[in-house]
Structures are given as structure tokens and as C-alpha cells.
């Protein structure tokens, strides 16, 4: 008899539900809140909030030397949604020369380009190179040491 390699199921099956106060925090104090509005459902699911299409959503880790332009940090978690069609302004994970690289998708002189957060790197026209978009970055999660 022998032991088997054990493999785990894919990501969290159990929604993580957090109870939330039914009183919404309001910016400013103008007027009385209508009793009919502002009552959300009584559970918030962070998974459902960030992962719109589980079948097309992948997680990646950030690594690199010049992330300030994008407000990213080493080891941040990227939530990448392949179901989205990339539009100018989107942050994307792109395949450049056999590597996965985070860039911003922009129009440059009427041509689609991948732009770096650091001016040191020139924009890469999307038509050239071995360069294609892998998926659209929907969110970045930065965790603080606690």
C-alpha cells in the first residue's frame, strides 16, 4: 500500500461572511437618513466583492524595482480577471519576452501601448514584440505587517 500525493481544491469554497452594522456611515450630517435606504444586506463577502468571475480570476504576486508609479509594493497580491476586455487606462498583466509584467494599457498617438510606471522604460506598442495581454488587473491587495 502506498501513500498518495494529496491535492487541495481550488480557492475558498466557503464565502467569508462578515457581519456589518446596518447603520451606514455618512459623510456629513445633512438631514435625516431615510429609513428605507442605506440598509445593506447583513453580510459582506470580500470574495464576491473582488472576484467577479471565479473561473477567469487568477492571483499573482508583485515583484519589481520600480513600482511607485503604480502604487504597488513587493509581494502585493494582484487579482487578475481574464474575462475583462482590456481598455485604455486598465492595469494589465502582459506577456513581454516570455515574462509576465504589469503595465498600464494606454493609447499613444492613436496606437495601443503598454506603459510602465517608471519613465525609464519606453512604452511598448502592443502590435510589436512577442507582446500580448494576459489579463486585466482588477485589484491590488497590500497587507501591512501586523
Amino acid at each position, binding site marked *: *500500500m502506498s501513500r498518495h*500525493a494529496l491535492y487541495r*481544491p481550488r480557492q475558498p469554497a466557503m464565502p467569508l461572511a462578515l457581519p456589518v452594522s446596518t447603520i451606514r456611515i455618512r459623510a456629513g450630517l445633512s438631514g435625516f437618513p431615510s429609513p428605507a435606504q442605506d440598509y445593506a444586506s447583513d453580510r459582506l463577502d470580500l470574495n464576491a466583492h473582488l472576484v467577479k468571475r471565479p473561473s477567469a480570476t487568477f492571483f499573482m504576486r508583485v515583484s519589481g*524595482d520600480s513600482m511607485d508609479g503604480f502604487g504597488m509594493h513587493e509581494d502585493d497580491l494582484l487579482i487578475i480577471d481574464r*474575462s475583462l476586455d482590456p481598455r485604455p487606462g486598465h492595469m494589465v498583466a502582459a506577456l513581454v519576452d516570455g515574462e*509576465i509584467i504589469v503595465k498600464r494599457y494606454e493609447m499613444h498617438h492613436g496606437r495601443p501601448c503598454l506603459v510602465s510606471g*517608471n519613465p525609464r522604460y519606453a512604452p511598448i506598442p502592443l502590435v510589436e514584440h512577442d507582446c500580448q495581454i494576459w489579463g486585466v488587473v482588477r485589484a491590488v491587495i497590500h497587507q501591512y505587517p501586523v
Partner: protein
Amino acid sequence: MFGLVDCNNFYVSCERVFQPRLEGTPVGVLSNNDGCVIARSEELKALGVGMGVPAFRLRDLTTRHGAVLLSSNYELYGDMSARVQAVLEELAPGVEPYSIDEMFVRFDGLDADGTLALARRLHRRVRQYTGIPVSVGVAPTRTLAKLANRAAKKEEHDGVCVLTADGPETRALLSRTDLKEIWGVGRRLAERLFLAGIRTAAQLRHAASRAIRRRFGAPLSRTVLELRGIAAIEMNDTAATRQRIMTSRSFGQLIHELGELREAIRQHAQRGAEKLRQQRSLCRAVQVFLRTPPHRVDLPQYAPSLVIEMDRPTDDSRLILQAALAALERIHRRGYRFLKGGVMLFDLIDADHYQLSLLDAPQGDSERRRSEALMATLDRLNRHLGRDTVAFGMPRPGAAWPLRCANRSHRWTTRWAELPVAKVH
């Protein structure tokens, strides 16, 4: 109409999604313990590497042609397979997984244009959402859909092929299709048909189905009907089981207790192992799945599945059962009520042609003989005295030997510590 969605070179494609540098290079995936090749990229096929070639013979290719040989990563393949299925289910109501990389999809109530449009959508969307390239074949029967799928892989079809029951394209395709390529027609059956003067799918299609039934049995006569465009094969027919064995059933009621689920999975695993021995196959991997009732919107939904790779190809009920129950423990979550569950045995190989590789996990001769004798006795008792006369309870956990998986890629989608890294610059 039935559609068959087949993931192209599935294991290799899974690897390439996260390792773009593998694109365009010859890639092979190795069986457990890095024994032999079980999946090949087109480039590796072009170098003349067949399925089942022992890894040590390929050392030359890795140095001379830059071929990359990877250890199998069933955790990744299982997750990607579940994703492909989920994408299909968003677009089409009737999706039946046939193996880890093939799924049947019902194409009902559509005209010719609608059928083609849906086929193209499935083709495009699976690729976009999961990164896995697929071929889609659609036809009036499963057998023809299989052939349509093969045709779809040819360049001129660009991944999608729709066949009608008797169109010119169907006839042309059948006349150049070898018998061995037909679903459910194995090598031996093809040889017997050849001796009877039947050499192509077209000839088999026109053979008198009564005579075929008398001489070759009912399953082949159903294949004849299927080739004519009359749906006659169910998912659990022998033709369907040859390449993978699925035992699953609705529980009849919602169950949530691990004990009850174990009982159900135990039965499915044992039935599957029995079928495996009947057709003289061995399996390399076992998949267990559960499903909550999809139409009960009032209940939380959960449809997990998990693949476990066997140490060596096996038909031993005890090992299969142990793997299936281990998988069940891992996917079961409290708070869900399940309607359906089952076991799939796949990556099957022919027991008669299997030779123990030097690199396979060791099993002594005497141990193998004892296992064979035990299984034969078990099957005989159950056949003569009724099913489940002898069945297994809890198997004892086995001893371990370290698995060789020297070259396994990361489990990119299922482990926090192994996520892909995206560079920023």
C-alpha cells in the same frame, strides 16, 4: 446536437498558461515518479516522441532540441479543468465532463447558424477566460462529435467543426477516417473488422447493423447507428467508458454528513475499480467530485473536485478507494448539502501492455500477484453472489515512499506560496 469540447494538449497547455516561455518549445509531461511521457506538445510530437516513452530515453532531446520535461502537476490540471467546465456552464445548460480535458455540451434548439455561433463562442471564451486552447466539434451524435472534434483541430477549421448527419463534409470525413479513430473501437476490434472487409468509418456506417450486432456485439451496432447520425450511446455505455470510468449518481436526497458521503464515494470507487478490471485497464489518477443542487438558489453552492495521482497505474480497489476517500476528506466542507457526487478514474492504460517502469514506485512481484488474486476473487464473489457481497470498509493508511517529482511546476492556482510572480517595471 452534441458538442465535444476538447482541451488541446491539456496538461502542456496548463503549464504554458503560467510559463509563457514554454510557448513554441517542445514540452512533455511525465507520469508519476517521472517515469514516462503522458502528454506532449505539438513540437514534441513533431520530434517523433510517442506516448509512454520512458523519460530517460529523452535526455538527448532536452540537450539538443531544448525540450522541457515536466513532472505531472495534477493539482493544477484539476483546477484548470474545473475552470474550463465552469466557463462552459455559463454559456450552455447541459455540460457533462467526459474526462479531465473533454466535456460534452448539449446544443439543443438551435438552427445551423446558432449552432456554429455557440460553438465559436465556447471556443473563444474558454481560451480567453482560462488561457486553455480548445477544439469544439458539434454533430448529431457523440460519436460524430468526437470525429468533428478531431477535424476541428486541423488548420482549415480553426478550432471549430460542425457536422450534419449526412452532409458532404461528414461523408468525406468518414471515408478517410480509420476505424481505430472511432470512439469505442479499439485496436483489436478494428483488426477483426478489417478481416471482415470493413476498413473505414464510411464502410462501418453502411454495414448492416443487425449483422454487426450478431457478429461483433451490441455496443458496435450502436456505434453504427451513431455514425449514421442516430444518437444511441449514453455516457455510461462501454464505448464511453473505455478511456475513462465515471461512476456518479444523484444521491436522491441532499446529504451533508461526511459519513454518508463516504459511504456513497466508497461505493462509486469500488464500482469504478470493478469496471476498470472488467475492461482490463489500469488508471493513473482518480478524481472525486461533489455538487450541491444547482437550481436551489436558496442554498449555498459548492461544486468541488479534486484529482489524486496514483503512485503507479493500478486497478487495485484498495488503492483506488483509499485515494478517493482521501480526496473526499479534502473537499468536504461543512454547511453544504450535496445532491450529487462521484468518482472518475482516468489516464487509463491497457493492463496487458503495461510494463513496470524502473522508475515507477516499486511493488514486489509477490505483492502484485497477491493483489491480482485478491481482486479476481473479489470480482468472482460479487458476480456470483451479488454485488457488494464483499466490499471494503475503511482501508488502512499505507506506508509511504517519497515520490519523485523533481520537475513539477508550481501549483499556480491552488497554493498561496506558489502564485505566479508578475514583474513591475
